[in-house]
């Protein structure tokens, strides 16, 4: 299973963190710090995999963001690399040429996309269409709820 996923910039700023195991905040911060330092010190031509404590780390850089995934010993590294790629594709399709700012300003959406794709540390839905449909449906509901609110306020003369 995937133990955690971290997204961080080249300056070491954490943009997204998804943990699939229970950890104290203190240990999360420590792990994050150490791992970011380790990954940032790797050179470009090195392999995308490394051993870290008793986990395997799979990472890939997309533009200014590092996507870093920690998996267990039995998991398949190459496939995890593609899992990361699939997540980036989802973000890209949803935001339209996604960039780091999108993730910063819409962090909660990034989490929602995560939950449709990976759950409990395991891949659940590998069809890009299905995931995107689910997210778009959520957006539709969001619009509806906003409409509702707006119309209520208008009725009350408060819009």
């Amino acid at each position, binding site marked *: 299973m995937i133990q955690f996923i971290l997204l961080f910039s080249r300056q070491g700023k954490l943009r997204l963190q998804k943990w699939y195991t229970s950890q104290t905040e203190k240990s999360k911060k420590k792990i994050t710090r150490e791992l970011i330092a380790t990954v940032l010190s790797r050179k470009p031509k090195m392999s995308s995999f490394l051993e870290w404590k008793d986990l395997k780390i799979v990472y890939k850089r997309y533009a200014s963001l590092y996507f870093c995934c920690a998996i267990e010993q039995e998991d398949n590294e190459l496939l995890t690399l*593609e899992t990361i790629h699939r997540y980036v594709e989802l973000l890209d399709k949803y935001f339209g040429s996604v960039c780091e700012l999108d993730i910063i300003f819409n962090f909660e959406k990034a989490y929602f996309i995560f939950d449709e794709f990976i*759950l409990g540390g395991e891949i659940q*839905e590998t069809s890009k269409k*299905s995931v995107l449909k689910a997210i778009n449906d*959520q957006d539709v509901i*969001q619009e509806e709820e906003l409409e509702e609110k707006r119309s209520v306020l208008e009725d009350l003369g408060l819009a």
Partner: protein
Amino acid sequence: MRNMRGDAMRGLAVFISDIRNCKSREAELRRINKELTNIRQRFRADKTLDGYQKKKYVCKLLFIFLLGHDIDFGYMEAVNLLSSNKYTEKQIGYLFISVIMNSSTEMKQLIIQNIRNDIQSRNPIFINLALQCVANIGDKEMATAFTHEIPRLLTSGDTIDPVKQSAALCLLRLHRTSPESLQLNTEWTARIIHLLNDQHLGVATAAVSLIDALVKRSPDEYKGCVNLAVSRLSRIVTSSYTDFQDYTYYFVPAPWLCVKLLRLLQNYPPPDDPSVRSRLNECLDTILNKAQEPLKSKKVQHSNARNAVLFEAINLIIHMDCESSLLVRACNQLGQFLQNRETNLRYLALESMCLLATSEFSHEAVKKHQETVINALKSERDVSVRQRAVDLLYAMCDRSNAEDIVQEMLTYLETADYTIREEMVLKIAILSEKYAVDYKWYLDIMLKLIRIAGDFVSEEVWYRVIQVVVNRSDVQSYAAKIAFEALQAPACHENMIKVAGYILGEYGNLIALDLRSTPMIQFDLLHSKYHLCSPTTRSLLLSTYMKFINLFPEIKQHIQDVLRHDSNYRSSDVEIQQRAIEYLRLSEICSPTVLATVLEIMPPYPEKQSPLLVRLKQKKPLMEAENNSEPSVTTTTTHTEDVPKFAETAIHLNQQQQQQQQQNGLLVSFDTIESNTHFGESTSYSLPSTITTTETTIQSSKKFLFKNSDIIFENDLLQIGIKGEATKHILRVEFYYGNKTNFNLTNISTNITLLDELESELRLNLEPIKPTIDPKAQIKQSGTIECLQEFRDLPKINFSFL
């Protein structure tokens, strides 16, 4: 960038912009604190906030938390959001809880209630939200609360596919966090297995992960999944890439599902049913064939997906370990990858080959790639790839190539990364001992090891060297010779001094006749390093000097002067002072015969499992999947005259860790080097450590005057040992009861009686003991014995069993 937010939570976007525009950390903190105060006020305000506002503020809190600041309020509001009937509000509430509140809080029950409401709501998007939350933070309480509802959801015909997916992984999470709380009804087993065949590939993908975990828990119950898995896998692998539409990833059909199915099959031995088995083999063949076909796309995603399936298939082939043709093909495929341009593939090939090297069918095939691997070690720029090469060399080492491999590893060690040096030292030590044909070679390697990486040579490593030398009389003079030579180097690592000091102390006489290493020269050489050493080393050297007094009476005066010297006689280090004083006295009052008996040469150590292996396992618990054809011998404590071949019995890489543990446990603390060395060095008072024979023996209690741990009773069935640690008047004691038979010993009861006066002189406090001991296993009973007054007699132990 599309403005996804639209009008929703404008305030949040503004807040995030503000934070980004802060020029300094202080400015950021100020802005955050301002916002926190604002939110706190709003939450405390009398009029209740509407859902939208609450959602916005909770989201802001979440953002602040993710920046790295602590949030200590807002939980109530977040939980309140859960009961809203607006989807987006619920969503934010659940997100907050999943990210921030994943450890136990008082609101747990409230959260569980809300989740339950949502699950029972019949609204699929609400159900999904709730399930996702449980899958993210599920724990023991949630497992108990939902142990019926979630499986029912999963197996019911009414549930729609997306909900089934979430339910499967939800169950998986609950199972992982608290398997005991989850009571899975056997009537659900068949339905869960059947999910493998589900039309919806997403459901199947999610279900496989769940089944994988359940299989590990009760393999027999879920045995039916094997057939389904094989047929599903076969259908996917032989399909054309257009068949799966959106589940095809860059021309590879359903790679995630394939990999998961292949993993699932690794939980079982090869299928018994011949038709299933042949289908599986065909499948694996097809995957291997496909790997040879030209790439359908230049994109790296295509080759990665294809190779991911390939690697997993190879893992399965290695696991099944029965079709030699498949194994050889797998090995060749990996061999090709070893020289691939892509670093990732070389890395993975090295990793997979490690597993192949342990299978007897393919071990020889792996060895053919030795050159390539050694080149990788020398030329790879990526340290993680080099590390894999080291692991593979270790795995493929056997008698035929041990010398080369050890040499290459030693050369690499000189320039290796500091983080991996200790592990490499252990590996080199283990390999060179295991495959040593000529123990002189072994000693050369070990001394070289200490020279190159002295700091990383842990105690167990050089203790082992000593053990080997003590047990093999044929290399003792060689050992003395090279130890002496090593000391002559201008800069000598302290571990080298320790080893050489010990060896010369025991066997210096064997080279004393050579004019270059007369007793005086030996002593001077050692003493020249004396003051550079730490107190522990100096203590060791003092013992050596004492042995010299016995071996070389002609330099006795000289040594006595050293002992008398203030730096030793009045040393601030207690150990040094004690040894100096006692040795001096010993040398003054003892006659030569007494001295010779007291300082007799060390007897051979009993054969046991190598502590080096234990140490290596601790460092890398998953490495040792290795499989040696030598049977593992249960070693005993019998003191045999003909020392059995050290290499065979001493080191065993055992396939099952558990058996390992038991074996380890059986003799773990008796006659460890530490206790031996400690006593052996200060004086050789320790009587020959064991006098056991195969008859019943009750050990002499006198030896406990000098030792804190040893066996107190042994016969064919049973071995009882004791280990004690005394502080002031309390002895912390551990009794070890070992079962030497192949049957369970049940109804164990032990009774320690204190007769007459002893009752008032000693106070016992022991834990209750387990009632059974498994075959070839050991149990432990700890407790304390307190000494209230001086005592003369000894307590009695009454041990009974069936």
